[in-house]
């Protein structure tokens, strides 16, 4: 054991410099050329930074498209999911409440048409996306609140939809923050 102790300590110190010192500094340096300069990509609206592209936000007003339920209330100082089991009775009660709230705000929508992600909490609590279906289903409410034509909103959602990678890998997504900014800029 003794024979190996000193080499172990010295090698550890050297590797610390290489792997924990130089390596992340180098990545930080290269990332200066990336969007957001390695500090996360921000989104501006009316000349003000209103959020991060990849961090979801809470939208509760009828005139905006809502984000998914979040267990951390979209405060990105932390992150978290519900960790509720599929059969947990308390959890199912919460889901039922979310369905009722959604139906109260969206009287034109039939229960069977509510996409599951609008009544279930995301993993991160910061999910910035919706599926296109979850955006479409909110169109009648937003249209009524803003006095706009639903067709126009549908076009907006379609324009904001990001197709799968190479058109065939993974799901289609809509970034809620960007969609709502586009919505505000429409008028």
């Amino acid at each position, binding site marked *: 054991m003794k024979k190996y102790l*000193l*080499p*172990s*300590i010295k*090698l*550890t110190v050297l*590797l*610390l410099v*290489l*792997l*924990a*010192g130089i*390596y*992340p500094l180098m*990545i*930080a340096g290269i990332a200066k050329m*990336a*969007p*957001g300069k*390695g500090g*996360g990509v921000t989104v501006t609206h009316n000349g*003000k930074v209103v*959020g*991060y592209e*990849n961090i979801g*936000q*809470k939208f509760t*007003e009828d005139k905006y498209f809502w984000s998914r339920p979040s267990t951390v209330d*979209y405060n990105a100082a932390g*992150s*978290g*999911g*519900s*960790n*509720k*089991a*599929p*059969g*947990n009775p308390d959890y*199912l009660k919460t889901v039922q409440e979310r*369905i009722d709230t959604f139906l109260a705000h969206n009287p034109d929508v039939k*229960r*069977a048409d509510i*996409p*599951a*992600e609008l*009544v*279930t909490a*995301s*993993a*991160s*609590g910061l999910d910035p996306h919706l599926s296109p279906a979850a955006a479409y289903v909110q169109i009648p409410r937003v249209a009524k609140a803003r006095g706009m034509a639903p067709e126009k909103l549908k076009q907006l959602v379609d324009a904001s939809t990001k197709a*799968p*990678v190479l058109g*065939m*890998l*993974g*799901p*289609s997504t809509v970034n809620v923050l960007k969609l709502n900014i586009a919505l*505000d800029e429409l008028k």
Partner: protein
Amino acid sequence: MTTEILGVIATYGLTLLLAWPLARYIVKVFNGEKTWSDFMAPLERLFFKISGINPKEEMTWKEHLKALLTINLVWFVYAFFMLMFQDKLPLNPDGNPGQSADLAFNTAISFLVNCNLQHYSGETGVTYLTQLFVLAFLQFVSAATGIAALIVVFKAFKEKSTTKLGNFWDIFLKTNTRLLLPLCIVIAIILAFNGTPASYDGKDTVVTMQGDTVNVSRGPAAGFVAIKHLGTNGGGWFGVNSAHPLENPNYVTWMTEMVAQVVIPIAMVFALGMFVNRRKFAYVIFGVMTIGMLCLLIPTMTAEINGNPAIAHMGIQQATGAMEGKEVRFGPAATGYWSTVTTIISTGSICGFHDSTMPMTGLMELLAMMLNCFYGGCGVGILNYYIFIIIAVFISGLMVGRTPELMGHKLEAREVKIAAIITLLSPFLILAGTALSSWVLAHHPEANWAVKPSAWLNNPGYHGFSEMLYEYTSSNANNGSGFEGLGDGNVFWNVTTGFVLILGRFLPIIGPVAIAGLMASKKFIPESAGTLRTDSITFGAMTFAVIVILTALAYFPALALGPIAEYFSLYR
């Protein structure tokens, strides 16, 4: 859903395409042949010179293990004290506190053993200094430790009769400089250009569209996320790991991280065949591992895509599958694939919460970690599989009434005893741990810990039991994922899982290295008509049967109480 399933298939295909050339490269590096990365050689020589190491000195298997254990001990002491006193050290822009002794003990061990069970949250429980200089550092070197142990076994396979099995320091350092670091740089750059933060800036504050003020945690995460996957570590920069939209911003990064975590384990299987020049032997192993993976993956993806029956019962259609604890940009198919891969190869990173997956998925996740040998973690996956091969050879030998042989060496009582002990160790640690925690929960629900036992479980009934079973299974497999609803941030869980982690890591490394070393020192017996062929499909099927039977016998009762019972209560 079609594009989501296509995405999974494409990602697996891409992994195989990359694993093949990587395997060739690994073989070249450890055979000492010329490669493009030889420009690192002067740096390695400098490191050896300063450290007073002669990299040409050949070691026996015992010397290998002594060196390995010594340097691991150094890392443990270093990590423990750094985590405890991180609040007094620099690079702490968010002002996070030091860890308590029991939490530092658990965190240090957990990263030391390539597990990355995290009983803290990345945003508040560690500082940039400890993230980089303790956790990311250990993610590199713990992966290199596993690979170094495996290369010793490769060398023992290759030689006809020898006690000289290469130099530990040489293999270990080259794993870092030639394999992990270059690949990490590529992956980190891909992540950084897709939106993962890499700068050292602290939290940012923004006022949102609706006028709420929120903080956004950041930090030099891109490099960390790269090694967390490449080294099959799994510990996340942020609390929710790769479900966090900064840690895993889009489907491209999802594919990148997915390929990164499984490419070395698969490449190692191919490398085995090339290194010892028994390619068919490696193909059979790869075949068994892949079939094993599919047996776990298909039920998982089916269950997740079909959604939660209890929510369907409320009249919700779930066209996008079971979405609780999942992110829209990945969806149920990708999250299901990730959950299978991360549990078979002991990464333990997540892109959706396992606690909220369907009971069938939970069963598959638990089984995957109990088996822990389909591809498996960096280096250690094949070591675990090797133990099953020993058992399979032994049983086959008994069946035909002949002294069993493997790779031209007799397999005798001592080796079989070691293999048997290692096989029995996992069920012992997992089941004894779960029994102990269940007992404490039932008899001392009000014990005065940071989280009282009565508040441990986030879910009632069978699933609550699964949360405890999962925690010990994950610890023993050095996996690091969790049914995260479990209130594990207290002295009971920190200490008990800490010990399971150490035993579950080092004994399954010592055992196979010892067996391989002992076998290699024996007289070489040339193959004859009477030799049991270990590179045949029959033998592959035999190994698979051994794996399934041993696992089923050991774990069925516990699984029946957890996910199986939950399944039948949910799908009535």
